[in-house]
């Protein structure tokens, strides 16, 4: 399983990249691998305000559906439209193909997230 350095992670296998007040959010390699061939991605609307740990997206493979949760609270400022037309991008490169960007409402929540090193340890226990 690939873990990208410089990102922060949740134990639901979402990743966050911080760019000032904006958090770029996506799913980790582990999540796409376990879902299998992704055939559908549902994304929120711009300006949606979503709390931490609430579902912001549903991702479906042929076999199963999974909710993707907010690592931090915030207002959606961008969605990756490419994923709607080509959901398989999440399989091919889950770190390159972000899902949404949010304006964080509580940056202190970032302290709750795992570093890439912590996340690697966490994965080792999951497997």
């Amino acid at each position, binding site marked *: 399983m690939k873990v990208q350095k410089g990102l922060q992670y949740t134990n639901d296998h979402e990743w966050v990249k911080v760019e000032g007040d904006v958090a770029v959010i996506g799913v980790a390699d582990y999540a796409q691998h376990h879902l*299998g*061939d992704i*055939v*559908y991605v*549902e994304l929120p609307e711009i300006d949606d305000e979503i709390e931490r740990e609430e579902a912001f997206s*549903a991702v*479906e*493979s*042929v*076999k199963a*559906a999974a909710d993707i949760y907010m690592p931090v609270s915030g207002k959606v400022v961008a969605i990756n439209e490419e994923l*709607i037309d080509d959901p398989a991008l999440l399989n091919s490169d889950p770190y390159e193909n972000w899902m949404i960007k949010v304006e964080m409402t509580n940056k202190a929540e970032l302290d709750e997230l795992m570093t890439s090193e912590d996340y690697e340890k966490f994965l080792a226990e999951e497997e």
Partner: protein
Amino acid sequence: MEARKTPLYDEHVKLGGKVVDYAGWYLPVQYEGLVPEHEAVRNAVGLFDVSHMGEITIKGKDALAFVDYLMTNDISKVVDNQIVYTFMCAPDGGVVDDLLVYRLAHDDFYLVVNASNADKDYKWITEQKGDFDVEITNISDTVGEVAIQGPLAQKVLQKLTNTDLNTITFFTLNRKVDVNGVECMLSRTGYTGEDGFEVYTTNEGVVKVWQDLLEAGKEEGIKPCGLGCRDTLRFEASLPLYGHEMSDVISPLEGGFKYFVKLDKASDFIGKEALNKQWTEGLKRKLAGFEMIGRGIPREGYEIQKDGKVIGHVTTGYMSPTLKKNIGNALIATEYTELGTEVDIMIRNKPVKAKIISKKFLTK
């Protein structure tokens, strides 16, 4: 209850199968991926471990009469070495199981039943025995089984046997076929909508058969296939799955399988009265196919509404790997089953438009 291992468990692990507990058995959902495995079966050849299936034999003087009494289909019309698909119903018309009946001889029948129902079926059949002179045996644990499926299945299997496979026509069997040194029963059956064979042998023999078939099919691009594509393939081919398209509370008539329920057959059968009544009074709900108009994938259990009123639920739903469309089967109130009717599928509490289409997804 710890899940059980089929004789091919080690092979699945060796091949990188994603093994899960299914109906009390450890089986692979997929190896390389559901979609490539699905496509292998549609376009070339795939190999499934189906050792989890249940097998029950009914032998003796009254075997024919007894099996005919248990089943909705007309077993009296079946000849030696022929197979029929049928339902076994309860007196209320609910389905105990859907199964294949193999007639080996007039006094020797071989039933292939769903893994999850095998113990229940055996108990049910035993309870119905009454004065019939039959011997009922659950041989599930002694049988190893693989299914080789796809347009190139015959070509691959033929490499391993001197028996001319053209002699085994659709829904017939050959009890004794030598498959590269292993004695097997072959039937031209499957659960994919493609041509193919089911190969029955011992728990020891099945490992060699599995390995030999994967080796023999290299040139044809044979892939080991998991439960994931087994479900998408059967669904596209309009083949029902117990617990979804029919069950103890969904009759075979509601499921749209009247062809396999012979209400006018010569002898009485369990469930006849209830099914007859259901048919003459008119079905209140029916199974229908549908296609999503809006974005989203329908999944089993999702509610279906029309003008805000609940009219039924999704029994199976997928993005069809062959058709690349989001389609499903739904059990809905009969008045909404006209082709072209628009309904709302409730996906994560939001109504998404869909329209009723023919259940024969592949032949449209």
